[in-house]
């Protein structure tokens, strides 16, 4: 059966990996290509790059960066941010990425999921969603609402309904990012991750809040998530301790969680 995946996530501004806390106060870490190479060599299973200002600046994604990363990384990588339509998707894939992440744009125009899946295959289309815990109501029965535009705009949409719709439209994977847990380093929101993973039949990726290996153990043993996104714990100077991919995998392996084994040198 499949190993549980660790996915390194990088927010990129002007070619630099940055780190924000709950979508604010970005600090620069290192050039994105260097970060990609470094984490690939640590044997990460997969990477995601978000061109975080492309959308707000109304410019296409930085394809030179996508291409440069492709020369360094021989595991799958996903690119998101600033994708406006099929042409952008095509350009990103042709520049060497395997998957495209759509988020706010898919909320505005859900058909982009279906079009992308038809044109390039479901496996290329990752639906990322920003979810916030709210009071359960008739319009938001799951108790999680979808936000867009850097988690600034609330849509009134129910997270579980949106996930199910995204899967029906042809998304190949769903990334569930908890706005509440993002940047806290206190662990994933297991409730919403579990809820969505139990109710869609495509792989679900947990995101937001991972600060130590234990959090990955929790999400893989207590929910049906297929993968977990990690960022701060790999490289943020804001954390007291960073972990290597090997350390995280060793922690999981010792506790019986299936991961792709680290290959010793």
């Amino acid at each position: 059966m499949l190993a549980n995946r660790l996915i390194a996530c990088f927010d990129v501004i002007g070619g630099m990996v940055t780190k924000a806390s709950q979508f604010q106060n970005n600090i620069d870490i290192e050039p994105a290509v260097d970060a990609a190479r470094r984490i690939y060599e640590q044997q990460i299973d997969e990477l995601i790059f978000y061109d975080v200002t492309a959308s707000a600046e109304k410019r296409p994604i930085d394809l030179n960066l996508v291409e440069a990363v492709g020369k360094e990384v021989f595991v799958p990588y996903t690119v998101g941010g600033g994708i406006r339509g099929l042409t952008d998707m095509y350009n990103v894939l042709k520049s060497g990425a395997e998957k495209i992440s759509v988020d706010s744009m898919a909320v505005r125009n859900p058909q982009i999921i279906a079009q992308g899946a038809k044109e390039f295959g479901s496996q290329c289309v990752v639906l990322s969603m920003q979810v916030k815990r709210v009071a359960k109501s008739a319009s938001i029965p799951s108790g999680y609402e979808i936000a867009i535009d850097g988690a600034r705009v609330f849509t009134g949409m129910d997270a579980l309904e949106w996930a199910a719709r995204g899967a029906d439209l042809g998304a190949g994977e769903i990334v569930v990012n908890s706005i509440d847990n993002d940047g806290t380093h206190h662990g994933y929101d297991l409730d919403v991750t579990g809820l969505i993973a139990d109710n869609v039949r495509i792989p679900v990726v947990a995101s937001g809040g991972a600060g130590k290996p234990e959090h990955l153990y929790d999400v893989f043993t207590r929910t049906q998530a297929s993968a977990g996104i990690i960022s701060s714990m790999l490289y943020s100077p804001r954390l007291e301790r960073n972990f290597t991919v090997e350390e995280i995998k060793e922690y999981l392996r010792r506790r019986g969680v299936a991961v792709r084994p680290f290959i010793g040198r």
Partner: protein
Amino acid sequence: MIGIINYKAGNSHSVKNACEKIGVECKYVGGPDDFDGVSAIVLPGVGSAKATLDSLDEIGVLPRLEELVLRRRVPFLGICVGLQILFEHSEEDDADCLGWIKGNVVKFDEKNVRVPQIGWNRLVRKRRDPFLAGLGESAYFYFVNSYYAKPADESDLLAVADYDGEFCAMIRRGNIYASQCHIEKSGPVGLTVLKNFCEGGNG
């Protein structure tokens, strides 16, 4: 020189990056006249069998491919949907495929497993082959597929993996190799397999 078939739906770019990483000379083949100097052929693949076949048809390489691979026995490696189209038929869009390998392509059962299969799965070798040399005991490869092949002839199977039971991960029939997993995106072990193929093909 490795010829990488470059067509609309493929991820030829990733395969070219991987070849360059392992120091293998390669070039894109975008039409029937681009095969000069090519001693082995890689057909990358993503997406559906039908779209891939249409796309290959559009660039007009199929007759030349059949001549080189089936008659002149040029080493050939199909990846992902590049494996699936070698079979006789795919359930996906009810597509008639090339029929170079006997058998057909069917869908994973969504009742039992998440579809598509996305992630790293452990390769289990079915027989010894130089193609799989140097992998060590527990090699995981990256898979992205909703469909899998069922070779009619078991002896074509090189390796399997487990997703709702054993399924075909790699095949070999003479000079024709194919991998359901994305060897160009499977880290060091994937590059090892690509290197094995390229060295066999150039040797």
